[in-house]
């Protein structure tokens, strides 16, 4: 693998991290496997695209995507998931139904063509890094991934909300018993996780482009990341994203037709020895 491909893998890993960290936050704390996460990503991309092309501002596109997807997340959590609380299987399947609805809605609104979110002038073109000429935008994605990691790290480890989330991952009942409104923490986490999917959609929409089956692809990669990394672990997502991102690039270079195998082979092997992932811990229930 040469430097160019290595950078490709790293930037893809950064995007995966942004999307999968939202997924794992929700999975870790609320125990909800949100299979609509891919659809939220795609929807976020489309909304970001619409806002960015109308206003001509990439930043506004990002904010619009995050706000809109957080709002959709609110509807999903408060409007639908509240009826099936406590039943994991029904929750998962409900989010799957929601994903179908969202995808079809996107197809109605934006049609089946593929879109690419316009990259702002500042980030166009390429620059020399480590001896190769590389697109600036993808480096920007890499930096954004690192910034999101740092921000989430700070949030989880140095704020009261973060402490509550971490405590909730370990034992939600205990947190509630000590007088915390855990429902509100749950809701904030759900919105945050959704917003990250929206942000990922905009970022990915600018270099992977947006098309009707993009949601399923990103969802599978996110699943792989979370299965490898383990439930609710930020470091796990980081390591998982790097592994999946690099393996995917390696796979595409060496065996383009079986790229999926290269990711899921190691994942399956890992599961055989550590069913809860690299950094996962058994649920305390």
């Amino acid at each position, binding site marked *: 693998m040469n430097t160019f491909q290595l950078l490709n893998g790293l930037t893809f890993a950064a995007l995966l991290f942004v999307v999968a960290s939202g997924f794992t936050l929700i999975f870790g704390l609320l*125990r909800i*496997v949100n*299979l609509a996460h891919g659809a939220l990503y795609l929807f976020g991309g489309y909304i970001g695209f619409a806002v960015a092309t109308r206003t001509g501002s990439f930043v506004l596109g990002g904010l619009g995507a995050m706000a809109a997807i957080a709002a959709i997340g609110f509807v999903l959590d408060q409007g*639908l998931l509240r*009826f*099936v609380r406590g*039943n*994991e*299987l*029904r929750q*998962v*399947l*409900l989010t*799957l*139904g*929601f*994903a*179908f*609805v*969202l*995808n*079809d*809605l996107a*197809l*109605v609104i934006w049609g089946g063509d593929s879109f690419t979110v316009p990259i702002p002038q500042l980030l166009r073109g390429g620059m020399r890094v480590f001896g190769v000429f590389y697109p600036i935008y993808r480096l920007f994605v890499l930096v954004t991934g690192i910034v999101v990691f740092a921000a989430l790290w700070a949030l989880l480890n140095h704020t009261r909300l973060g402490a509550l989330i971490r405590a909730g991952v370990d034992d939600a009942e205990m947190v509630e018993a000590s007088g915390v409104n855990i429902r509100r923490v749950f809701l904030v986490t759900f919105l945050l996780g959704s917003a990250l999917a929206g942000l990922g959609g905009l970022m990915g929409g600018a270099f992977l482009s947006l098309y009707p089956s993009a949601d*399923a692809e990103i969802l*599978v990669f996110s*699943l*792989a990341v*979370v*299965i490898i990394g383990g439930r609710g672990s930020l470091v796990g997502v980081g390591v998982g994203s790097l592994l999946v991102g690099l393996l995917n690039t390696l796979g595409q270079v060496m065996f*383009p*037709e*079986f*790229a*999926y*195998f290269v990711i*899921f082979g190691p*994942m*399956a092997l890992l*599961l*055989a020895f550590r*069913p*809860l992932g690299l950094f996962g811990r058994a649920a305390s229930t």
Partner: protein
Amino acid sequence: MTQATVQPVRIAGMTGGAVAVVLAVLAVAAALPLVLTNYQIGLATEMLIFGVLAMSIDILAGFAGRTSLGHGAIFGVSGYVVVYASAQAGLPPLAAFALGVIAATLVAVVFALLAVRTSGVYFLLLTLALGMIVWGICLRWTQVTGGENGMRGDVRPAWLVTHQAFYWAVLTAAAVVSYAMWRFVRSPFGLTLLGIRDSESRMRSLGYNVSLHLFIGFAVSGFFAGVAGALYAMFNNFVSPSTVALAQSVEGVLMMIAGGVGTLFGGFVGAAAIIALENAVSAYTERWQMVLGVTFILIMIFAPEGIIGMLRAMLARKKR
């Protein structure tokens, strides 16, 4: 085991009453082509095929407590192999059919090897991811699978070309595999699966090899999903990545749940209901995906026990 109590007369493991019901249902089903149009016969055939798929999923979901989102892939692999073997490799239809079922069973064996250690949501996620690999391969391995365009080929033997003949063949196959599945879940092996569903740790401490039982259960379930897939390939004479896509698994699971988890024969009820709905909706709108999603959400919220479960609950209320 010695039976001290007087047993009712049993034919092929069923009580006399059950035999009568089964024969009546079969007779009605067999007579359907005489009154239906060709299009309706096609729909009925599809219902039977997907009923078998839903039942195969129910073996795991209802009797081993493991909901699989990878059965659409197993189903689809069988279809791909059947079409490839007959259209590209030139094998006779029956050999292609057998190859398809064997291939599906092998895929299920691989899935099972990886999935038996997990349970609950992790099982769901893993089978979903494994199914997506199969989908990815069918989509990208263009030389063999035809990529996005899929593969076409006349798979049916000459004596099954008419709608009626094929319907009767599928009905026979569905009846045979349904009976096999029913015997399977009621066998001591099936009861062990039930025990694992209810308490894995207890079964383990009783000395049962939980992983091995789940592995065999998964393989058997995959075999039946493969039968459904092979029949579907013959029905359509066509396979494409959408045959193996997640939506296929989801539809199978939805049919299984709509019929009622753990009712086995509910699979046919669910399949009939969903396919009838699809057909009715498609007459008015192209937004079937959305309707499917909404149906899924509504069933999860209001009727997680499925149609048969709801009927049972209503009957129980009346009796009281």
